[in-house]
């Protein structure tokens, strides 16, 4: 036990552990998707589950995302808790009709008679040198669809805790797994996972006084790095990990921004029509009289996800974040 505790675990391992524990605890949990069985998933998140639980509960499906999610709907209608894998962000798009027309609204259209406890795992985001259609940040599509929860872990502990919570949820959860954090490590004991804040709560990852970085998923470590670098400029940045876009934790976010008076939203999906606009508006509505500067956004460019050799120019990095933080001295400049 102790040796396990000392050995750092990756986010991918924590996700595997979460799936394994959820399947052990609840016989209705089924894992399904392309390559999730024998191969253990292309990111090995489902590694070993087929051997442990058998093909009936860990199912290699035909290669068809609408079919995967559509059959999961029927399985959930019959009392199972399917956990589907979409393999890559942009591969999930064929399943959008099922997601939007059925998954998101089955509870609503049946007046609560038929909830769908489906977890949709989507390896998402860039930064791993993936070729076209392997690096999209699709959270804005999901958060624009009522009826879905949209969750993204940034830490190993959250990967485990949030996935367990997602599977236990009686509502559909789009669970966005930041691909480039799959191999991030943390001292985390898979034998005794500690409880994490539930879905819908944001967490202050770094306390600070001079401005708040509001971020989630793959951008959390980047923001933490930026916050460390900013100390050289005399900035003491607070970093809030949103963890969940739906539901959104207005309370934690507003409390932080009221303390600091300044905020930058950081995410790698596009800026126009992206999550940052919504978040900035919510912050402004709640904290207007506390704000010393406009809420800024540091986001990916409004372009189709670029080829891997150029993606470093697209992804918000430390310098771009620090530049925005510099612009937060708005009042002095105007």
């Amino acid at each position: 036990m102790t040796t396990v505790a000392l050995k750092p675990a990756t986010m991918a391992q924590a996700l595997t552990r979460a799936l394994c524990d959820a399947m052990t605890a609840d016989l209705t949990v089924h894992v399904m998707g392309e390559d999730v069985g024998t191969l253990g998933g292309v990111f090995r998140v489902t590694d070993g589950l087929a051997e442990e639980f058998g093909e009936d509960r860990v199912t290699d499906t035909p290669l068809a995302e609408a079919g995967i999610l559509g059959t999961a709907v029927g399985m959930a209608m019959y009392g199972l808790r399917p956990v589907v894998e979409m393999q890559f962000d942009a591969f999930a798009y064929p399943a959008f009709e099922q997601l939007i027309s059925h998954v998101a609204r089955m509870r609503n259209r049946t007046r609560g008679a038929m909830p769908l406890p489906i977890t949709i795992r989507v390896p998402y985001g860039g930064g791993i040198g993936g070729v076209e259609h392997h690096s999209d940040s699709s959270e804005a599509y999901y958060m624009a669809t009522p009826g879905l929860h949209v969750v993204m872990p940034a830490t190993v502990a959250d990967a485990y805790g949030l996935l367990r919570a997602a599977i236990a949820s009686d509502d559909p959860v789009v669970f966005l797994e930041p691909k480039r954090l799959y191999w991030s490590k943390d001292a985390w004991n898979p034998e005794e996972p500690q409880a994490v804040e539930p879905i819908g709560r944001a967490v202050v990852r770094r306390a600070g006084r001079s401005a708040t970085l509001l971020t989630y998923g793959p951008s959390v470590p980047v923001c933490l790095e930026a916050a460390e670098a900013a100390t050289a400029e005399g900035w003491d940045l607070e970093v809030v990990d949103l963890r969940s876009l739906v539901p959104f934790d207005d309370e934690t976010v507003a409390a932080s921004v009221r303390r600091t008076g300044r905020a930058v939203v950081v995410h790698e999906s596009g800026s126009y029509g992206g999550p940052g606009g919504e978040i900035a508006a919510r912050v402004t509505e709640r904290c207007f009289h506390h704000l010393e500067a406009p809420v800024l956004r540091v986001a990916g460019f409004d372009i189709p996800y670029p080829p891997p050799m150029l993606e470093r120019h697209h992804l918000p990095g430390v310098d771009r974040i620090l530049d925005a933080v510099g612009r937060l001295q708005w009042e002095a400049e105007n």
Partner: protein
Amino acid sequence: MTVMEQRGAYRPTPPPAWQPRTDPAPLLPDALPYRVLGTDAAADADPALLRRLYAELVRGRRYNTQATALTKQGRLAVYPSSTGQEACEVAAALVLEDRDWLFPSYRDTLAAVARGLDPVQALTLLRGDWHTGYDPREHRVAPLCTPLATQLPHAVGLAHAARLKGDDVVALALVGDGGTSEGDFHEALNFAAVWQAPVVFLVQNNGFAISVRLEKQTAAPSLAHKAVGYGMPGRLVDGNDAVAVHQVLAGAVAHARAGGGPTLVEAVTYRIDAHTNADDATRYRVDAEVETWRAHDPIVLLEHELTERGLLDEDGVRAARDAAETMAADLRERMNQDPVLDPMDLFAHVYAEPTPQLREQEALLRAELAAEREGAQ
């Protein structure tokens, strides 16, 4: 020695992994739609089943005309009539056991009613007071599905889940000819065949996807032929012959229940009414064509059989029509009452627990309603 030097002596061999394919002939549908009524086979049909089908057909036709009338009174936002297709609707409902599941499309209200749903509850989607007016689990009828063919993978998943749980349950999914062009049709059939799921797909080929004829929809010899490529049997049946549809579906359901996997059934029928009351069918078809199909009416076909065999007389016809009238009068009366709606229901079933954001919006609406009430006083 190069390949070129081997010429003459070279004999192509199959690739290493190649296996001789099994004969697809058993999967192929018959060339002509299977019929019972008007043939010698009709003599074997069970009188009790014939009588039951007849009563349901007459009731179903009346339901269609009543619902269409309700659109003219503004009581229904829209009604996609299944007049002419009642044999498919009724057979689909009657072939299932209580524990089985029906997955209807938007045109299949009648199948849901024939399965036992309250006729008013089955119409809430079309009236506009709620999307699904019934608990799907109560009669094991999935919500009427408006997007095309998207309910088919649900049927497959449900049937698969039932089998995994060891339950003896079959799912029957309804789709139109237009729906067979959708990707979800393909994916559902493929999943069903790969998983050998106990599911039956019934395509009601009524000739038109709104205005587009079948020949612009598919180049396949028949829609039932599509089954072969997935590795499941395809069956072609006269969709206006209630006994034939019932027999073919019963065979497919029994096959699925016994672990034989899915079947695709194409019922060839005709949509006598327009796509909906909002559609002008004269733009894409002529009356003469409709009349040929009126002559092949499912009720007339069955009535003839029953009369020939002495199973139905004038009193019997009158009794069936009276029962249908009673249903229609009840439907009319209840549909003419304004539904009582609670606007707060808008927020009641979005999530198990409303998000903080929804709670704020809920409070806003509650305040607006309170202000309205005050203003009214």
